[in-house]
């Protein structure tokens, strides 16, 4: 069954005299290339001109702080489990007295590293996070000259107090509802252990 009506059965036949001259075909081809002189180029001149990206573009990650400025991440490790590329590693630590303004809950991530060379920017870490701590942003991971610099630690991932990163597009009601949905395995395991009342946004 033909998929399109554009197909044509080619029958090899002797070339006619005008075909054997090749000149009509050459002129036809030259005409086609000539018309391209007047076509618009689809080029985007990158550094000066940037292509619009989707509001939910998945670029470099950010570790959010809450409104008071404390880190939201509790080093539960769900993002690392969810990560199909195994790009995330972390080490947890217990919050000491006097650090309440730094860390939101009793446990926090002492080390939190994402290997940007392994990361496939699928966004499953964001989906898995029960604390609204990790988000992908529309920032593009810049290139460097050695592999080591692609392992982003907390120094690069955690947002600074001065420069908060807006992720409100990623926290629409549907998204938040999705995170509460017990249908998903990671929500179930987490929500069973804790009470939903404790979760504040």
């Amino acid at each position, binding site marked *: 069954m033909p998929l399109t009506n554009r197909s044509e059965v080619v029958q090899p036949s002797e070339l006619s005299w005008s075909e054997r001259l090749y000149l009509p075909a050459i002129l036809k081809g*030259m005409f*086609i290339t000539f018309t391209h002189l007047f076509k618009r180029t689809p080029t985007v001149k990158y550094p000066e001109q940037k292509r619009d990206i989707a509001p939910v573009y998945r670029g470099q990650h950010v570790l959010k702080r809450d409104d008071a400025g404390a880190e939201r991440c509790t080093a539960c490790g769900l993002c690392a489990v969810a990560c199909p590329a195994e790009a995330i590693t972390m080490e947890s630590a217990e919050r000491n007295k006097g650090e309440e303004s730094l860390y939101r809950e009793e446990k926090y991530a002492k080390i939190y590293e994402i290997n940007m060379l392994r990361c496939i920017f699928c966004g499953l870490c964001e989906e898995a996070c029960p604390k609204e701590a990790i988000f992908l942003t529309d920032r593009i991971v810049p290139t460097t000259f050695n592999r080591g610099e692609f392992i982003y630690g907390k120094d690069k991932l955690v947002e600074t107090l001065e420069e908060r990163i807006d992720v409100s597009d990623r926290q629409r009601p549907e998204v938040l509802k999705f995170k509460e949905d017990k249908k998903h395995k990671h929500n179930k395991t987490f929500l069973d252990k804790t009470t939903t009342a404790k979760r504040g946004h």
Partner: protein
Amino acid sequence: MDPILLYKIILCVIVFAVSLGIAAYMTWGERKIAAVLQDRVGPDRAGPFGLFQPLADGLKMFMKEEMIPGASNKFLFILAPGFFMLTACMTSVVIPWGSGLEINGTVYPMQITDINIGLLYLLGVVSIGVYGIMIGGWASNNKYSLMGALRASSQMISYEVAMGLALIALVMWTGTLSLGEIARQQDAGWANVVYQPLGFLIFLICAFAETNRAPFDLPESESELVGGYHTEYSSMKLGFFLFAEYINMFISSAVLATLYWGGYNFPFQHELGLEGNTLAIIQTVVLFAKILIFIFIFMWVRWTLPRFRYDQLMNLGWKVLLPLAIANIFFTGIGMYLFGKLG
């Protein structure tokens, strides 16, 4: 100093500088036209519209590491690109760049030398151009370079035959070998392409082959081979080979414009009421416009037609163009008889 001699020296320098400058900007034009024909932007980073790109390319060529193969014949290896460049520049002396400037009552022709065997000189120098390629390929002491040089030189020699025969028909029609005279004749009558359309077509195709341009760029075949005769060359020596090809292209365009498209003449030039030097300068501008159109055609064809296979190349040269050129001579003879141009 004799004013004529001084004038000739100045003209020589101008023609040399202009052909180098145009060849340099042809590399930019080539990349720009290639880009536009393929719906791309092309070089636009170095200066406005990328106009400083030739400077950047030249600087790059000079900065590259210079490699001379240990087993090569060093004298010939260094001689070859210079020789190729020399023959490329030599042809420009017989081309009439304009009718003539009148300064202090003396008319100075805008042609470095109007030798009465100009066409013969042109063909001779073009033939010598093969030596640059052959010496380069041979001196590299690399079998692939040598094979590339053989391919290039056999192609050039094959197409010179048809080119020469196409010119013979033109010489029969115009009755002169001097390029200045051919240009002057076209002032009075029609451009020669009206009388010699087939000859023009053959000459055009042969010009593509002689300058190693697509679709006859087998000597280089940059998308298939490492390189042809210039495989072992690097730095500015390679640059010379590539640059000389652009000069060849410029000169070929000038020859095509002069021989077949009226040279510096343009229609109704005497009805404009212009005279003397103004007209001469406009004529030179017109000639350069014609040359630029031919250069554009060279590039346009390159980005339209795919490369020939080697046997197709030889078939076209020997089995199609050569008989056609001979037939053209025959028909030109008949035409001359009918128009009463004989004797």
